[in-house]
């Protein structure tokens, strides 16, 4: 990882610096993440039990730990090469104001969501080579306008077994109020036994969403009904909702192994309802060995 720095100067010669992280990697889709290339196991470490507090103090760096209870952060937090197998509603609840980095971490065991953010005041949440699976949702950050970034991660599979109508499973849920989500070369999936579920739910129920950027990676929908979607981009004016805006989906693979269209209710569901400047580019069917592999997919 390198950086680009930009000086910002006023007329008195006072200078502030803006720093941008830059990583040059493989072309998106050439090396897709897998359960074997994400999480802690591929790093070869031996885990030791985590015995600290459930609210982790600001500035903590954890490495090679096995966390078996839900955690939250009081501030800046780094967790590397670790496993979080917490039961309960959520495994990781990001509430503190600092940056959070989860790198080479496996998260499973919560019945609802692997990662949630709640009332964050500042900071970037980065998930790098995170393997999040086995819950109803991978990431839920409704109402969080701070930056979130998923890199080279595997958020699959999430599902909600049962009978009749039940809560919708998703890999990412952002039901309003988000301003910056980057999903880079990441696999998102919903599993079988899911009800009317999609990969990225951006219903603007709590204010419009903007700044959603999906670059590279693979989407997989296995859900067992025709309501499943890729990204739900639309809004409901009769409910007083405002449209989402400034979405980017490019260089993305969409599995057609389970549905010919990839997502039966639309890969870019209600994409035409977006406001602002939006990009849909080079979204292709993924089914190696079959004729449709590589065919372009339009939203809708």
């Amino acid at each position, binding site marked *: 990882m390198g950086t680009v720095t*930009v000086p910002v100067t006023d007329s*008195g010669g*006072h200078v502030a610096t803006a720093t941008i992280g830059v*990583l040059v*990697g493989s072309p998106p889709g050439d090396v897709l993440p897998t359960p074997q290339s994400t999480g802690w196991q591929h790093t070869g470490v031996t885990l030791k039990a985590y015995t600290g507090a459930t609210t982790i103090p600001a500035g903590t760096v954890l490495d090679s730990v096995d966390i078996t209870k839900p955690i939250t952060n009081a501030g800046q937090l780094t967790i590397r090469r670790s496993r979080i197998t917490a039961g309960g509603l959520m495994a990781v609840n990001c509430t503190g104001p600092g940056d959070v980095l989860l790198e080479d971490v496996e998260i499973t065991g919560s019945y609802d969501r692997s990662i949630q953010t709640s009332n964050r005041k500042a900071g970037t949440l980065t998930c790098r080579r995170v393997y999040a699976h086995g819950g109803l949702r991978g990431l839920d950050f409704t109402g969080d306008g701070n930056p979130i970034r998923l890199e080279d991660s595997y958020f699959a599979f999430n599902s909600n077994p049962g009978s009749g109508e039940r809560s919708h499973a998703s890999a990412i849920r952002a039901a309003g109020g988000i301003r910056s989500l980057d999903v880079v070369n990441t696999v998102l999936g919903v599993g079988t036994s899911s009800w009317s579920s999609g990969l990225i739910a951006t219903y603007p129920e709590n204010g419009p969403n903007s700044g959603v950027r999906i670059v590279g990676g693979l989407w997989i929908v296995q859900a067992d009904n025709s309501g499943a979607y890729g990204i739900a981009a639309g809004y409901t004016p009769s409910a007083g909702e405002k449209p989402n805006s400034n979405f980017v989906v490019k*260089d993305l693979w969409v599995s057609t192994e389970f549905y010919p269209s990839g997502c039966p209710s639309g890969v870019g569901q209600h994409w035409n309802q977006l406001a602002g400047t939006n990009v849909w580019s080079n979204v292709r069917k993924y089914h190696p060995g079959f004729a449709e592999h590589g065919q372009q997919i339009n939203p809708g």
Partner: protein
Amino acid sequence: MASPIVDSITPASVTLAPGQFADVTITAHDPDSGSGTADIPITDGASNAVTAHVSITIADPILFGAATVNGVAVTATRITPAGVSPATYRIQA
């Protein structure tokens, strides 16, 4: 006089394949800038009064300089004028 404040960098980091580019937007402001109003009473010898309203702006423009690349093989070019905020930089691998 205070230094400019960087309000946001969007996205804060980018991952690029060789040949790809990404545009990053930086928003900043100078805390010394501001605006307000002043009311000046004007009275004649018969005590007839009017008020003159004056708008006052303290402008301290900020400039976004040339980007410096550290430890990675990319180019970074500002694609908006130097004195315009937000500024956008194109990072090309």
